[in-house]
């Protein structure tokens, strides 16, 4: 974890808090540690570390590990973290990045999530001067059709995307399945999906995946509009969509590269 090793600034009167969290962060990165290992880690005397461990055990911040004489993080972090997670709202997290994306690309932007074999649009922002009727909130497209769908399908765990592809193999002919596989491979290479005229002639879309704090795929951010504004500088559109997806992931608690 990034901040585990960096000593926190001490705030007068509550120094014990930074000492306590230094122990918890050490356990977060190491799993189980003995009192002596913890004392060495935080650079405090064993006796005072041992006293603090007693306090933290009583509070439930840490607990005894399975190896004799070791400690591990307590379930307090699980219960508080669970409540923090409950407050995260995917749509609320995506709204500001989506709005920026519509303004910067000049086309409509969408938040979509997977539902079974399809991607459902759950939020959208209009471009300032165009209103397209392509995708409305609640609309669903199969996972192999459209920019949002392809962004989701391309970044699903391999077993799940393979299961979906074998399922559609019964409905599509071989050439179509081959084309979907090529689309997915390109999407993974580029880091964003491209759908050009497949849903509506003259329209194009670009999508990128979003992730939660556990690194699980949550859905996709995409844009869709007339071919010209989307495709005239595809690299720029792709970069803007990916940045919006990264920003949304960060707002969900994912650790993303800047």
């Amino acid at each position, binding site marked *: 974890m990034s901040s585990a090793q960096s000593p926190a600034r001490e*705030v007068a009167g509550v120094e014990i808090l930074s000492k306590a969290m230094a122990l918890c962060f050490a*356990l977060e990165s190491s799993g189980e540690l003995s009192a002596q290992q913890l004392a060495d880690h935080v650079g405090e005397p064993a006796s005072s570390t041992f006293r603090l461990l007693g306090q933290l055990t009583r509070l439930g911040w840490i607990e005894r*590990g399975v190896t004799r004489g070791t400690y591990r993080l307590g379930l307090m972090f699980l219960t508080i973290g669970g409540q923090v997670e409950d407050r995260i709202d995917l749509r609320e997290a995506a709204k500001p990045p989506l709005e920026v994306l519509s303004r910067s690309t000049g086309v409509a932007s969408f938040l979509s999530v997977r539902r079974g074999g399809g991607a459902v649009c759950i939020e959208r922002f209009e471009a300032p001067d165009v209103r397209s009727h392509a995708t409305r909130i609640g609309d669903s497209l199969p996972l192999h059709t459209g920019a949002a769908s392809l962004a989701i399908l391309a970044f699903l765990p391999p077993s799940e995307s393979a299961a979906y592809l074998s399922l559609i193999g019964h409905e599509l002919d071989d050439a179509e399945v081959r084309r979907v596989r090529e689309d997915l491979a390109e999407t993974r290479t580029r880091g964003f999906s491209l759908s050009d005229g497949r849903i509506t002639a003259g329209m194009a879309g670009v999508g990128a995946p979003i992730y939660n704090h*556990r690194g699980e795929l949550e859905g996709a951010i995409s844009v869709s509009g007339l071919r010209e504004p989307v495709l005239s500088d595809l690299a720029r559109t792709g970069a803007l969509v990916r940045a919006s997806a990264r920003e949304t992931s960060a707002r969900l608690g994912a650790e993303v590269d800047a």
Partner: protein
Amino acid sequence: MKLNRTLTNAQVVIEALAAHGAMTPAELAHETAVARSSVYRLVEGLVAVGLVDALPDSRVQLTHRWLHLADAVVPSMREWDGSSIVLDELAAQTNQTAYLSVLRGDHAVCINWAQGRGIDLLILKPGHTLPLYAGGAGRNILAHTPALIDRVLGSTELTAFTAHTLVDAAALRADIAATLRTGYTLSHEDVTVGIGAIGVAVTRDGHYLGCLSVGGLIHDIKADQDVLVARLRAAATRLAEPRAATVPSGA
């Protein structure tokens, strides 16, 4: 051992922010009955360690750092290594949501789950808790923790979740006896109307480690009760198999 005041105050401030979301320090002081000057210092200390951040409108909130701390908890519980596979298989076999819960303090805390295919049950999920008089997990843990029975049954604060919640001592004693006699605990809409669950004990080397349960629509749970109990017992036996890590040394 006397608990350090700064740490206990930090705990109540954290719990208040977790329960209510973003608040101003003044609101926090009011909510927690911690002096306002102490709240300001605590908040500053929590910001310094990355657990709290300030919003532009002067409210403060818990950071996403908590999500990563929470994610580190269950992998460190090595006595449950491999439990995700067992839960996934149980959920797939039964089409119900499978839960693993342990005792901490006076609550059952869910530490892992595998969601069933039917409906999303959100009353219990990792990090969520149940009191020991309610739910398959809560009551199964109570039945197997004799040291807590008198305290829980003697409590005057047993709040009913539904009309089916067991809130009187005689009913809970009968329920404990039934759990120990039959080897499983049936939750019949005692936490959520329309929802049921069945819980069984996971024991290793004679220690009660926690409760394995499945939950779903009460109609499905009742209709498949015998099959579900058999599947739960088989899964609990697998969880009980000795592994490198056995039981927490302090348990």
